[in-house]
């Protein structure tokens, strides 16, 4: 069976009309397409960067607020400039895009414009017919383009691809984020990214984010849509669908991670899908540090005994501590961690809050190896490796 088609959808800058695209996204994923949804009010540069990093076959733009001729043409131009003109552009805007406009947009390199009243099935059929072709090699290729295409190859071969060992001696620190859906993992990561970007001027961060595939094998990869700080050239983000694998990651995660770990990043962050109590997604020493993100609303205290990750996480973040139940949750979780006798850290955050002190503390724990949590002997080797990539030594690169 061929790998799913991947496309990216977005709504242009200064446009919040996301009703049509939400409906269309659902139709796409129901028909086996993987949709990376970038959200509304997005700049051309954000759309093109995301399309390249995600290595999608096409970009679908839903525009209802005017200025579409210019905007669509800009996307095409920008893709070409970066050597990614194999990524196609299509879209629609209900009645706001006239037939004359559409003709002009096509002259400027847009593949197809759908008008009001087009059945959703027609759009799905169009995407399946035109964007399922195998990707061709690119003539001109920069670092992100190459990396993105390599990740596609790994993913489409279900991870059964041997990585060419990179000559890069610098190893990034790999941090794994997991926890139940709705705990605020994506927001937390995006807030950490802001701090990564602010601490110096050149370091790069990679994010490997996961969302579940649905029946029919499509997936809505929507983490980018809620991110604000990670829309930056210094952040390489890749959204992966689980493609049938249970446990929070994709069959290709491990190979993709190896590739990223040998690329030029200072930090690599993995975010699992929202996980259940029994999940333990990071095996085989996949990551250097594990962060479990929890919501204070986990239910009765007894539930804590069943959460496996509480035994193995290096850092437990209790997010949303502005909620009423937070105080009790913090003390219950702290008590549970004490029983483990493993010197695990607990951090209280309100990730949605700008300049949150808890997120600052978490950032310190992640970037400062001295406060590292790896007190247990079997982690000693990794602890040593981590100190090489700690904040102080990174500044030389």
């Amino acid at each position, binding site marked *: 069976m061929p790998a799913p088609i991947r496309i990216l959808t977005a709504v242009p800058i200064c446009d919040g*009309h996301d009703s049509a695209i939400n*409906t269309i996204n659902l139709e796409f994923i129901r028909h086996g397409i993987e949709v990376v949804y970038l959200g509304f009010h997005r700049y051309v540069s954000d759309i093109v960067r995301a399309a390249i990093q995600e290595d999608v076959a096409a970009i679908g733009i839903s525009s209802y607020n005017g200025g579409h001729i210019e905007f669509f043409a800009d996307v095409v131009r920008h893709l070409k400039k970066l050597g990614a003109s194999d990524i196609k552009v299509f879209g629609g805007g209900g009645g*706001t895009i006239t037939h004359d406009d559409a003709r002009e947009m096509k002259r400027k390199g847009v593949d197809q414009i759908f008008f009001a009243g087009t059945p959703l099935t027609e759009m799905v059929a169009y995407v399946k017919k035109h964007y399922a072709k195998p990707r061709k090699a690119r003539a001109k290729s920069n670092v992100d383009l190459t990396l993105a295409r390599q990740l596609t190859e790994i993913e489409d071969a279900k991870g059964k691809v041997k990585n060419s060992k990179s000559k890069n001696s610098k190893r990034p620190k790999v941090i794994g984020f997991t926890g139940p859906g709705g705990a605020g993992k994506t927001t937390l990561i995006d807030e950490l990214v802001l701090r990564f970007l602010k601490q110096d001027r050149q370091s790069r961060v990679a994010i490997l984010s996961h969302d579940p595939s649905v029946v029919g094998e499509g997936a809505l990869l929507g983490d980018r849509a809620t991110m604000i700080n990670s829309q930056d050239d210094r952040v390489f983000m890749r959204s992966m669908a689980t493609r049938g694998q249970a446990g929070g990651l994709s069959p290709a995660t491990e190979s993709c991670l190896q590739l990223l770990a040998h690329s030029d990043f200072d930090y690599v962050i993995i975010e699992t899908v929202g996980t259940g109590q029994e999940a333990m997604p990071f095996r085989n020493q996949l990551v250097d540090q594990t962060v479990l993100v929890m919501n204070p609303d986990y239910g009765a205290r007894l539930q804590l005994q069943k959460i496996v990750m509480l035994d193995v996480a290096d850092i437990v973040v209790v997010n949303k501590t502005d909620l009423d139940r937070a105080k009790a949750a913090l003390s219950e979780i702290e008590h549970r961690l004490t029983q483990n006798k493993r010197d695990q850290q607990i951090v209280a955050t309100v990730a949605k809050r700008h300049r949150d002190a808890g997120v600052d503390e978490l950032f310190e724990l992640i970037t400062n190896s001295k406060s590292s949590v790896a007190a247990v002997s079997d982690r000693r080797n990794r602890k040593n490796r981590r100190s090489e990539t700690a904040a102080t030594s990174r500044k030389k690169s």
Partner: protein
Amino acid sequence: MSKLGAVVEAVGKHEQFVRDQVKRARSDEKFARELTERWNKFKSEIPVSKTPTGIPLPRLALPEIDEAGEIARYLFGEGLPGEFPFLNAAYREMYLEPLQHNEQGSFKRSTSARSTSSNGAKKNGARPPEEPTRLFSGLMLAEDTNKRFHFLSAHQRSKRLSTAFDGPTLYGIDSDADGVFGKIGEGGVAVDTVEDMVRLYDGFEVGSPDFSASMTISGPAPIIMAMYIAAAKRRFGNGVVPNLRGTIQADIFKEVQAQNETIFPIEASLRFLLDMIEWTSANMPRWYPVSISGYHIGEAGSTPVQQAAYTLSNGFAYVEMLMARGADVNVFGPRLSFFLDCGLDAEYIALARVSRKIWAIGMRDVFGAGPKAQLFKLHTQTSGRSLVAAEFKNNLTRTAAELMLAYMNATNSCHSNSADEPFTTPSEEWIRLASHAQAILLEESGIFKHTMNMLSGSPGMKAVERAVEKAILDEFREIESLGGVMGAVENRYQRSQIQNAAHRYEEQIYDGTRPIIALNRYRNGSDEMPEVELARTPRSRQQLQVDRLKKFKARNAAKAQKELEKLAAVVETDENCFPALLEAAEVCSLGQISGCLQEVVGRFRPMV
């Protein structure tokens, strides 16, 4: 937990109160006699107007009932127009033509007059009321929109302007920012500075009791409000401020739930909004500093019930937050106004009527508001979503039907959409037809100008009222169970409900269970769109806006820096930051101010 649960209880208690009064009227003879006498006396005093064809009509039609229980049910359950719980109308006479001298009977002026009570300027009952027509407009640069405003209001006694802003303005971004050039002046007017604001309303007496401005903007609303005030002061001096009349949308909750034009985190957005409401309530007694809006919730795809339920609950949440800050409900309460969509679904026959009743009961019984703060003052717009591009002239009929529904709900003001809206900012030809549709309905036809309650109270309308009220209260209970409006918002409850409804609506169109004439039924086979004149902003105009802004910034660079630092310092404290915004608006651009605020409070994280 929020006060929404208390509102549900209060509505239930009120229903019980009405039932008790009905029972009492049927068992207590003295009470029954009093009620009947009051009813008969009131009926006999209703003035009578003559139609142009010569038949006499009462200025208020009442149900033909003479049994005390039924009278009690009507008076307590619905209320006369202008009386609690305001089911029939917020005011006694609404759109009626002024009474001529030779006609008989009279209402005491104090109980009527929507126009005079809202501006308080004239006690003279003979003054013709303001037209409820309020047309939304905004295109290209400020001077272009200004020209359109003069064109639209040329034949109106009162100048009621409604302003649409372009995308960059709605998102608090300057026209000279990277990546927004093509959006300048598209879908609305570009406003970057106080100077644009001066150009926008040039030639209008903004302090006159005959003028009011409405501004449809929410994310950066406090900044735009400050610019409006600064522009008015430049033209007419500081003394004009207390006389300013109008509305700014400023509804953060509905942005987060549906329209997605939010630029600061929710808590910070709310703080700026409440700061502005407190300041304008104290200093601009004729201004409506927030228009609590269901329109965009409806347009994003919600059902009519969801629209009303989310709008009302958002309103109650604002009241609760303002009171928590110590604001007086009887000071800010009368300055709250509402904005609903009116489409073609059956619920719209009574949606606004029921909303008015629930608001009044909640405000009186839960928040202790006096009569003026109990009024649900409503602006309605016909549904943009109901219009389609295919055989677009049908949109005239759709809008006409929606206008009927809107006026049957006794809306206080109304915008009728142009038939060409599915593909462009309305052109003059079609916007003129839209405006005339209202004049035909209100002035030419006899449907609304002779008699209040002309179409109220049919058995069908009552059935819709009951169903809608029950469904709204069920929604309230659901929101309350999620921790009130704020908790529900953070759980993205309203967003997902709206998205589900939108999805269902689309599916109904595609599978034909929701007929849209000429789209999925009775198609003429041609997909070609009509030739209409498109309102698009030429590049040269867009460049002019950028150039003007750059000059403004260069000229004010030093002063702007100082004001922004002052503003940032105030925002760091708990003080009301609106006075600092007013000063910044004199010398800073919109983007400079929103950028400064975002440095302190952060940016809005989109919800999907």
